[in-house]
């Protein structure tokens, strides 16, 4: 069943096979819809096109005549940089001042370009640097700093029945009070890569089909991109109201534990995680206050992904599930 877009419901998203998609990506590009955003992507390097198609082939694509939020072009700036010593140069509609990477790491450039687009242009939603997932009316926000394991935890939950909104960019609609899914490729780093490969292998023998190559030597170490689950892509316009905020803390030597925290602490962690709190202004303050008013909050400390998933599901079952159906 094709994804139903609220933005393009009078348009038909195209069912491209990989060859057609490759041809479009190599020429003027193709418009891909990811959650509330539509970006026209063109890629001049075959290795990056292969990776992009592997990760994003299940998303809705549009041929022509749709309004883009932005465009992203990945290319070599001249013949030398295209073919001799190739460098992937990113051009976005509002900026082309990115440092190019070797074309072998072009997928990293592409993902960073998509990140930039959201981080610097999104003003219609309050944005959190957080993992966000949803299930059965439970909207779970996990604000955390890099290295806390939030991407791994969000990805892990998404392959255990939760809808992935995002591993990195939580979006909150101040008008409706809902979390807006933006299920991009999950950015896995370093030791989380083998953890997630093992995790996905438990549900699909063809698990390697879900992962990009591993890109070594980036400023964040080794990076690997993981495709969101099929259900998360299918449901990418299904919004949920937030009602749980969990601060995840990864500690390899800790005993798994759920620790109570004050709502004030949870509030300020949301504020600190929000990239556009100051830009959105008082609506952001009122929105975050409302989220915390309505949310059950805690901190979880976990040594493994399995522990983390168990702790999340226990906290939700103990505090939320019995109430959601009554709302």
């Amino acid at each position, binding site marked *: 069943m094709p994804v139903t877009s609220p933005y393009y419901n009078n348009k038909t998203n195209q069912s491209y096979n990989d060859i057609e998609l490759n041809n479009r990506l190599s020429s003027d590009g193709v418009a891909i819809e990811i959650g509330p955003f539509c970006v026209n992507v063109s890629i001049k390097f075959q290795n990056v096109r292969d990776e992009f198609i592997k990760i994003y082939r299940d998303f809705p694509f549009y041929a022509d005549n749709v309004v883009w939020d932005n465009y992203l072009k990945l290319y070599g700036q001249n013949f030398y940089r295209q073919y001799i010593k190739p460098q992937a140069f990113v051009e976005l509609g509002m900026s082309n001042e990115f440092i190019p990477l070797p074309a072998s790491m072009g997928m990293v450039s592409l993902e960073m370009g998509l990140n930039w687009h959201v981080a610097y242009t999104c003003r219609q939603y309050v944005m959190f640097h957080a993992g966000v997932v949803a299930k059965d009316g439970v909207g779970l926000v996990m604000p955390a700093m890099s290295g806390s394991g939030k991407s791994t935890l969000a990805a892990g939950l998404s392959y255990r029945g939760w809808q992935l909104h995002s591993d990195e960019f939580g979006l909150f609609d101040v008008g409706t009070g809902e979390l807006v899914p933006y299920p991009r490729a999950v950015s896995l780093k370093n030791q989380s890569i083998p953890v997630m490969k093992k995790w996905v292998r438990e549900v699909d023998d063809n698990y390697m089909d879900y992962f990009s190559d591993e890109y070594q030597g980036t400023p964040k170490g080794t990076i690997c991109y993981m495709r969101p689950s099929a259900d998360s892509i299918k449901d990418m316009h299904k919004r949920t109201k937030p009602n749980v905020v969990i601060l995840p803390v990864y500690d390899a030597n800790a005993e798994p534990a759920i620790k109570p925290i004050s709502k004030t602490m949870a509030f300020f962690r949301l504020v600190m995680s929000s990239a556009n709190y100051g830009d959105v*202004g008082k609506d952001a303050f*009122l929105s975050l206050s409302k989220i915390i008013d309505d949310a059950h909050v805690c901190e979880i400390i976990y040594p493994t992904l399995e522990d983390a998933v168990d702790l999340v599901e226990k906290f939700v079952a103990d505090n939320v599930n019995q109430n959601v159906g009554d709302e």
Partner: protein
Amino acid sequence: MSYINENNENIFDEKAVYGVPDAANFLWSGWEDARIVYDTRSGHTQVLNDFARELLALYEDGPKSLIELFDEFAKIVETDLDEPLKVKIVETLNEFDTMGLIEPV
């Protein structure tokens, strides 16, 4: 009388009248352990404990000098203010001044 901090700086004059610039610019939320104030002029978000919230509320009622503030606060707590408490109040007011929550009138 003036209040001097550890750096020998005069941080609050007893006779100076301070007030909230415009209380309508404040948005409030809060939970069991603290109150949160958002200043729509600056976009700053600050957390206040009950003690600080009570002091700011006195300024929201109208501008006043430190002497007047001491008097009104003493009525609320129903006791004379000793010197350590006065110092704590002045330090809090100094924080308010730094945050832009109050200013000399």
